[in-house]
């Protein structure tokens, strides 16, 4: 895939050399997170150095995709172009992945009644295809 094709797949997203592997992975329904080749720690969002040991040798690595909700809000207001239904309340969460404390991804929870979502709930990553916006990471309930 060329860089132009990658950029075209994600209009409105700041795709650059640091995060190209992450977004390229989404096009293949994979969630790739930078992992240090030297000390094995994970980092997100993608940057070009290991924050723990300063190694520049990092490998975008698939994560298991399971985790726990650590932050939760329900949005009741927003602009139409954000592509969400605010009338019913739009859930927004941060999920701590099982790979490492503090390793978190943000997104919505699909198909969930926002009133029933809770901190501490287990969720699974889904790569969601959005019309005109490119695929992105969101979540669904485990049970």
């Amino acid at each position, binding site marked *: 895939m060329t860089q132009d094709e990658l950029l075209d797949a994600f209009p409105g997203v700041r795709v650059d050399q640091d995060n190209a592997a992450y977004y390229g992975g989404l096009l293949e329904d994979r969630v790739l997170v930078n992992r240090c080749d030297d000390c094995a720690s994970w980092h997100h969002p993608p940057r070009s*150095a290991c924050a723990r040991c300063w190694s520049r040798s990092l490998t975008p690595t698939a994560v298991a995709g399971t985790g726990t909700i*650590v*932050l939760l*809000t329900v949005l009741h207001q927003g602009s139409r172009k954000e592509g969400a239904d605010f009338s019913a*309340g739009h859930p*927004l969460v*941060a999920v701590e992945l099982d790979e490492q404390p503090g390793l978190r991804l*943000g997104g919505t929870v699909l198909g969930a009644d926002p009133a029933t979502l809770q*901190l501490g709930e287990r969720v699974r990553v889904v790569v969601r295809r959005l019309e005109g916006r490119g695929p992105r990471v969101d979540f669904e309930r485990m049970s």
Partner: protein
Amino acid sequence: MSPSRRNPARDQVAIVGLGRSPYGRDRVGCTPGSLVLDAAIAAARDAGVAATDIDGLCGSTVATAYVQAALGIGRVSWFANPASVIGNQIVAAVAAVHSGMCETALVYHNAYRMPFASRSAGRDPMRRRAMLGLAETRSAWGTGHAESGANSMFGANAYAAWAGRYLHDYGYGRDTLGLVAINSRTNAGRNDNAVYREPLTMQDYLAGRMVRDPLSVYDMDIPVDAADAFIITTTERARDLARPPVLIHASSLGSTDYGIEEQLLDLDHAGQVVVAERLWAKSELELADVDVFYPYEGFSNIALSWFENVGYCGRGEGGAFVRQHWVEREQRILIDGRIPVNTHGGSLSEGGTQGAGHLYEACLQLRGEAGVRQVPGASVALVTPGGYYFNSQGFLLRRDG
């Protein structure tokens, strides 16, 4: 007046490390941030300093927050992105080191070929995308999120999520946040400059339009057109001027290597913690000396964290503290029945100026010029602007003499 010859920093500060990312016209696979990291790591290694030795950051267009998170520089008490390369960065760092804002500063600047200035760069589609500043303005600096919108834990969305986490972890209801909002509104009633002055009841508060659960329209600062300005000079000179000097007894910034909002490990890792630690370390005053307190409340939960971090109470006790020191008859907080909080009405009622209004009011009080809301004998003010991430700040101000 002849030019100042004052140079107390003379011979007091040195450059001890050099690092570089090779200059090139054909480099691919790099971002402005990665270029800075090349040079920063090299300079630190040249000087023999580790991430834990660095407590100050100063750069040009790549945000210090990007470099701090990317290099795991856990705690810095001073950081800046001044505009004019490279002298601006160097003199700012010299001043910061000499004045005690930090001990060891990492200073950097990068150049990046822009598509309009270089044919080869123009052929690089990612450089063309980078020029657009997508997705939100901070992403152009290497901080913030590559994507914006309702699925991004950015800005107000993240403050709402952290507010929810706070209420959940410590067992509070929204009425706890409501006390912060009502306190601001009550105080605003005595401030002609405040945009919202009519009383706010708890019933009104709880019925407020929900925007980002648990934050309603009453929990978020009021957009205004406004400005504040301050003249700052040496105390010696200030004593010869017309107005009573307000002495900056101690001040500090604070930032941790949080990365993006949802990556802040917990509230113990908010920049506020660094501010408080450094502020009290630098001060000859104690919390008991404070007569007026100005915790920023652009989002109401931020103020509760400030109560905790400056030392009025422990982690998670901010809500209980505010209730314990709530004076029902006055519909506002009076710490120990004496110390008012955000006497001007704060960002929630005077209007949102990102803490400038808090600082302005603290100065008014210390000069004894706050009119009907003057706190008798106010001589020490604690002002803590900013939230959890990149803008935590603290000032201990006192009246002269």
